[in-house]
């Protein structure tokens, strides 16, 4: 996969992401039209596929992929199209046309994220009450899995010790919010 695209997704380079989005949008709409997917659903699927691309970029999975950005994006898109067709089928009588459509893209199966539990939803509620810098700090530490050293470099902290104390301050604030919810 094109390395600079992976990096752009990982670091959320909005300019490049916008270009990528614009580049393949119409072609993807044409692709999903072959499967009789409604336009609004196609756009949802396209964005969902983009999100999955980004998650795979962040997890490092994309770097191991040999196919091009487009092939992978459309592969994920195809998977989501199949899911959508199943959803259509469950709602009304629908003769599946899956195998009638010839396409150049191999389906790429992605995991659908689990729904958050009640506790996790509550945690999310408090997480959102943190300041932006704390949210960013915890996202980088736990979701992105960056080391303190890497966060210091990326976010411009003086050194990793500052990151460490900042992070523990954020966690403490979050725990306090949970223990003593503001009224």
């Amino acid at each position, binding site marked *: 996969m094109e390395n600079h695209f992976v990096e752009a997704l990982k670091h959320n380079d909005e300019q490049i992401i916008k270009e990528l989005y614009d580049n393949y949008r119409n072609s993807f709409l044409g692709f999903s039209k072959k499967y009789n997917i409604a336009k609004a659903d196609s756009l949802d699927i396209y964005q969902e596929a983009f999100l999955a691309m980004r998650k795979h970029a962040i997890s490092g999975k994309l770097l191991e992929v040999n196919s091009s950005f487009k092939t992978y994006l459309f592969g994920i898109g195809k998977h989501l199209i199949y899911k959508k067709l199943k959803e259509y089928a469950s709602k009304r009588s629908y003769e599946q046309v899956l195998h009638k459509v010839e396409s150049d893209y191999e389906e790429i199966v992605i995991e659908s994220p689990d729904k958050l539990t009640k506790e996790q939803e509550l945690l999310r509620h408090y997480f959102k009450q943190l300041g932006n810098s704390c949210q960013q700090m915890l996202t980088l*530490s736990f979701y992105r899995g960056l080391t303190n050293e890497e966060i210091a470099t990326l976010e411009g902290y003086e050194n990793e010790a500052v990151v460490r104390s900042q992070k523990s301050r954020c966690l403490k604030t979050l725990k306090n919010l949970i223990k003593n919810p503001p009224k």
Partner: protein
Amino acid sequence: MINETLIEKYFSKSLTPNETLEFNTRYENDSNFKQEVDFLENIKLVSETEDDAQFKKQLAAQEAEYPDPEKSVTFKWLKPLIAAAGLILIILSINLFMNSNLDEEKLFSTYFEPSENVTSPIVRSADNETNLNNAFIAYGEADYKQAILLFQTAYKDSKNSELLFYEANSLLALEDYQNAITTFEDHLKHSDRLTNRSHWYLALAYIKTTQIEKAKKELKTLLNSGETFKKPEANSLLKKLE
């Protein structure tokens, strides 16, 4: 005590095999450690969900820059219509421009020059400081503003209707078309040697103010009057207007 480094390495997936072993042992045996790791795992999940939501918003904002599909369907129909309407408008305005505006301007400037003084020979003498004499001097020198004032005063004094003709000519020369028209019309209420000539100038003033039908009427009146003044010009001008 909770080992922060161990936890940091766990989340950045950089535990060595030995550290992994240590991590697993502590996770199983140390309830505080387990509680902390579970909590941070939840933060990981929650922050991922939030991060995804932000990215989705970003994509939706990008998508919003595309034209509304409903509207674009309308536009597909409208576009050729708008283009056609635009083209018609352009053709029409070119036509209008060619047939009227441009011609009017051109016709007026081609045919108009202020009338000669055929009424009162100018006397340049210190003894003849009358308004009338001064009016014609100003008129002859193309000092029309001055001429207008003097003609108006002279007309009040003398009631010589021919002076209206020169006043109107002065107004026309100053591009004060509305007042020129009013004054020519005033002049036409009188009958004097210059009455028929006023039809010619009034016609030009009407052309300039795009009142073509009125202009034609004036020209026809002039041609039917037996007046030889500007007869060939009136003929050719009338042809151009018809």
